[in-house]
Each structure stands twice: as structure tokens, then as C-alpha cells.
């Protein structure tokens, strides 16, 4: 019985951890050398859906490999579900306009942005940004209140 409760507790803790790991606030980041200081939400949407250029070049996009986080970013910031986004990208790919973003972990994402000048990525709001990476857009939830942003461990 103790084992059952122990496992149930582990499961509940696990669910809580998963829940708390889901952010509703985001930072869009680029390499420090990219001569762009600020992007609007519409520009971020255009970059992730229409291959909009940043500083005169089509950027290399990175997606988070974590599907729950990716789903939230697209839902909240880009404004479309992953199902819609997949159909949308199929369209971009098969009209020769681009390839889907590579899917990386948060750490790999930051490392890739650090190394490559024309890369755009997103990370949860409270993730620390290392040197060589700068934030060009912050999404603070639908109400625009950073205090309501979930904590990401």
C-alpha cells in the first residue's frame, strides 16, 4: 500500500513539474551581433509563418523539441495550433519557400543562437540568456503581465 501511495505521489509531483515547466511567457532571441534590437509580435509571427526577413536575410529558425512548450509558443505568440502550423509549413516547404525549423532543447537552442548570427529562436520567459545572445521580443502573456508568467525550472 505504501508503495502504491508513493507511486501516486510521484505521479502527482511529476504532473506538477510538467505543469510548472510549461511557460506562457516567452523571449525571442537572436545572436548578439544581429543588428536588430526589437521585434514586434507581428514580426515574430511573420518570421515563424512567412519566412519574413530579419536584417535583410531570411533567418534560420529554431523550434523547441519539447512539444508542450512548442505548442504553447505557437498558440500564444504565433497564434496558431500545431496542426494548423504543420499544414502551413507544408505549404512553405512545397512551394520552395523554406524548410521547417530544426527542433532542439533549450540548451542546444541557446548554443546555436550563440554561434550563428542569423538565427531566431524562442525560449521560456525566465530562462537566463547567456552572453552572445540577446532578447528582441518578450511576450508576457495575453494580459501582458509578467507577474502571471509561469515559472520554468
Amino acid at each position, binding site marked *: 500500500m505504501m508503495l502504491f501511495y508513493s507511486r501516486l505521489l510521484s505521479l502527482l509531483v511529476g504532473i506538477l513539474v510538467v505543469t510548472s515547466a510549461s511557460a506562457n511567457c516567452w523571449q525571442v532571441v537572436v545572436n548578439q551581433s544581429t543588428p536588430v534590437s526589437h521585434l*514586434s*509580435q*507581428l*514580426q515574430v*509571427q*511573420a518570421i515563424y509563418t*512567412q519566412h*519574413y*526577413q530579419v536584417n*535583410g*536575410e*531570411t533567418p534560420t529558425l529554431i523550434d523547441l523539441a519539447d512539444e508542450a512548450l512548442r505548442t504553447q509558443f505557437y*498558440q500564444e505568440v*504565433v*497564434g*496558431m*495550433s*500545431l*496542426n*494548423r502550423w*504543420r*499544414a*502551413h509549413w*507544408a*505549404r512553405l*516547404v*512545397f*512551394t*520552395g*519557400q*523554406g*524548410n521547417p525549423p530544426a527542433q532542439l532543447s533549450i540548451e542546444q537552442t541557446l548554443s546555436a543562437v550563440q554561434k550563428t548570427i*542569423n538565427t531566431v529562436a524562442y525560449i521560456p520567459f525566465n530562462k537566463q540568456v547567456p552572453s552572445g545572445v540577446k532578447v528582441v521580443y518578450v511576450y508576457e502573456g495575453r494580459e501582458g503581465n509578467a507577474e502571471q508568467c509561469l515559472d520554468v525550472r
Partner: protein
Amino acid sequence: MMLSMLLRIYALPLMLCLVASPVGAEVNGFATLGAAWFSNPNADFAYNNLSSGAGNSRTIDLGLDSNLGLQWTTKPAQSVRLTAQTVIARDASNNLVPSITLANANFYLPNNLSLLVGRTQNPNFLYSDVRQVHFALPWIRPPREVYGVTSIFNYDGVQASFQHVLSDQWVFHTNFGVAQAVSDYSRDAGDHVDQLHADNMKYMSISLQNAAWTVKLSYEQGNLTTQSQRLQDAFTLLSQSDAALSDRLALVNKDYQFATLGARYESDDYLALFEYAWRHLDAYFGERSGAYVTLGKRFDKFMPYVTLARTWTTVGNSSNSIAQQLYASVTYSASSASLGGSYQLSDHVTLKGELQVVAPDPGSRWAYEAYSTQYDYNTHAQDVLLSFSLNTVF
């Protein structure tokens, strides 16, 4: 026309190259396995340049939507993208053959300008550039009443594009291009295949887009010529009785104008589409227009939709019996209502089904293909097309 011919000749070698792609290139693909049943046993429901389908020729047709596409993409430099795409699908002569649908170099210039050189797909409709990628379409196939207003889809030429974020609300896109095109067609179920040549094509489209809305307007003009022995014989006969009328109706280097207007509202809950297309041709084809409305509701992975469509043709009048036959041969006025659904089986696979009721107006001889001698053109028919398709991208 040389480029078009070369692209035809090299379709099969290209497909083999795509399979054995060099390192550094990305290979993607799409495929659809479709099946369609048509209730009218005296005519075939066909689409685009197909000359036969389900109905008279076969009870269940696997070739209406089925296809396999392979695409090869590489970026030799940050600002250059090379793309080649080939699609195996049934053609006008009822054979499964590969054709090249994309073969271009896209140069990305500063200020969100880009220049594309080579073959691209018709960019005028909301979905014409991906009409063969069924996974990316909301329906099984785009409504024929609108997308059938033109039969030209492979554009060989140069296209300039520009996009710009307007204030904080809308993204503005524009395309301008010059091109030529060749399209195969058959009016006798594939026994004879003729060609439609489009030259001096100039086209332009503008669109405004935000997260939910897209509004698009396009215009195109050019010259059309058909190479058909059957038509040549008809016009030779017509010229013996009325040479001026024969010249006026013949489809030889005749001007055409083509325009479309489209609007899309798409959210995670709803989809609403409207498109209108209009084409005028200075030959016996006259004027054709088409419009449709699609409404869909998303329930997570499932989206049912309904589409209402209508097309109508205006041709000239003549007391000459040959001219009357020519006019009648291109008359296509019809309405349809479709109820369909799309279900996302996995990240890259969708299953779609659609029930379409098609009602050609009396006298519409271009509504279907492969008519049997029992087909009565003057009856107000109501036919049913039932289609299913499994669609994937990889």
C-alpha cells in the same frame, strides 16, 4: 517553350536524382492515396487536365487525387535557394508519369525582396501553388468551379516578390512575374492529347495577411494558342463559310485576361474561405467565372467543412452551325455542394472524406469528361461524387 520541353524530358531523371540526393540537400515529399466514386455512369468526373475519372470509364477511380511528390532543396549560399520538385500523377493521356512542378532558383535580396527564376506554380489563387499537396489543403481538392477557370499551372519565367510588415497589424505581400506555360489536355478521354501554350504572360498579385486573415487579389494577362488537329479541322471548315468568324474564334495567339479575389479567415476554431475567379479569352471560349465559399469548424484534430460553389460561362451567339458547336463544347455552368471532413491521424498524416453533389446546368458540355452516348445534356442532372484520401508529407 524550350524550357518547358526540357523540363518535361528531364522529369524522370530528376526524380531519380531526388531519390539519390547529394549530401547537404534536403529531400521532402508528399503523397496522397485517393479513391473516388461518381454516381453518373454516363460521364466521368475529372479534374484539372485529367481526361477521365470515376463514372463512365471506371466505377471507382484511384487516379483523381492520388500522387507522389518528391522535392529537393539546397542552399548553396545564405541568400540562394535551389528547389526542384517532381510529381507522379495521372496525366491527360491517363498514364502515371512524373512531371516537373518546381525547378527554380530563389534569390533573397535585402529589404524582403526576392527574385525567383525558373519553374514555379500558379501563384494566383489562395491554394494554387500547393494544389497537389493535399495534406496542406483544407479540402480533398480545391473546388473545380474556381480552380478550373484556368488550366495553366506550371509557370516558367521570372517572379519578383516583396513583403513588408505594415504598422503592427498586417503583412503586405506582392508578386510580379513574366512567364510562359504549356499545358496538356484531352477532350476525348485521353485518346488524343493536345497542348495549350500560354505566352507573354504577365501576372501580379497583392495580399494582406495577419494572424487570422488573408485577402488576396491577382491579375494576369497573356496570349493563348492551342495545337489541336480536331480544332484545326473545325476552323478550316468554318473558314470556308465565314473566314472572319473563323479568325475571330480560333484559339491562335489570342489575348486572355484572368483575375482572382480571395479571402481567408482561419483560427484554431474556424475556417472561412471565399474565392472568385474570372477569365476572358478572345476566342470561342468566351468568359468564365467561378466562386465558392467554404466554412469549417475545428474540433482539435477533426475539421468538418461545407463548400458551396458555382461556375458559369458566357459564350457568343452565331447562326453558323460549326460556331454553335464550338461554343457548346466549352459551356460549363454548374453548382455544387460539398460536405467533407479532415482528420489528423498523426503529425504528418491526414484522412479526408468528402461528399459532393454536382448539378450541371442544362447544356453544359464541359462539366464532365468521357461522356457516353446515353448522356442527356439537356437534363438538369444531380450527381454525387464520394471521395476519400489519405495524405502525408515527409
